[in-house]
């Protein structure tokens, strides 16, 4: 039993190390963008520090998100939970809400595209349905 637990711990440690490395890489990329934007340089230590802070902040985010979802009697975290996370700064909340709306509208576009494709396919099978599809298209052109 102890051996299995120890193996689990080691696995978790490896995963943590890999994730920290992934975060560090992304932080490096983002800092490079800021360097170009502001015409300034970041020391390696400061990038490593931002990386460390970001990794630790993820723990707080994860726990909060889990609590929010559980409070709503869900086990899957959704965008409403993420918006709650952004509540402390009004500009942050505004930005996240905007991004969430953009996501929602692009999802809607995808749905519409799929609907049109499937209704077009149906139209070719039955002449009656084909007429209905044509009428629908005419209506949308008018609006």
């Amino acid at each position, binding site marked *: 039993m102890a051996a299995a637990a120890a193996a689990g711990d080691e696995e978790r440690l490896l995963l943590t190390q890999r994730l920290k490395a992934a975060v560090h890489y992304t932080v490096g990329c983002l800092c490079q963008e800021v360097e170009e934007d502001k015409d300034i340089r*970041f020391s390696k230590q400061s990038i490593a520090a931002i990386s460390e802070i970001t990794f630790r902040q993820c723990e707080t985010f994860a726990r909060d998100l889990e609590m929010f979802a559980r409070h709503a009697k869900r086990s899957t975290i959704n965008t409403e939970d993420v918006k709650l996370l952004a509540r402390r700064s009004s500009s942050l909340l505004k930005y996240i809400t905007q991004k969430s709306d953009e996501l929602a509208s692009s999802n809607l576009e995808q749905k519409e595209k799929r609907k049109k494709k499937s209704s077009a396919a149906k139209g070719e099978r039955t002449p009656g349905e084909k007429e209905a599809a044509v009428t629908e298209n005419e209506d949308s052109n008018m609006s």
Partner: protein
Amino acid sequence: MEERDGRAGGFRKDTVDRLLRLHFRDGRTRVNGDAQLLMAEMLNVFVREAAARAARQAQTEDLEKVDIEHLEKVLPQLLLDF
């Protein structure tokens, strides 16, 4: 905040998912796709804010290089805002 769609930098959806799942207390907790994307954006903002604020601090001190001390000065307010 400006549009940055052309840039390569930013957190990947699956990395974000694994980062969050590392800290869940319940084994059944999941994150839906849109929430993963939104959290990736949240982390991008977090990092950019940390970097930009530290940079501004360094520039206020007439320096061309951002060091840990500049980050330390802006950290408290950053954490309060998030």
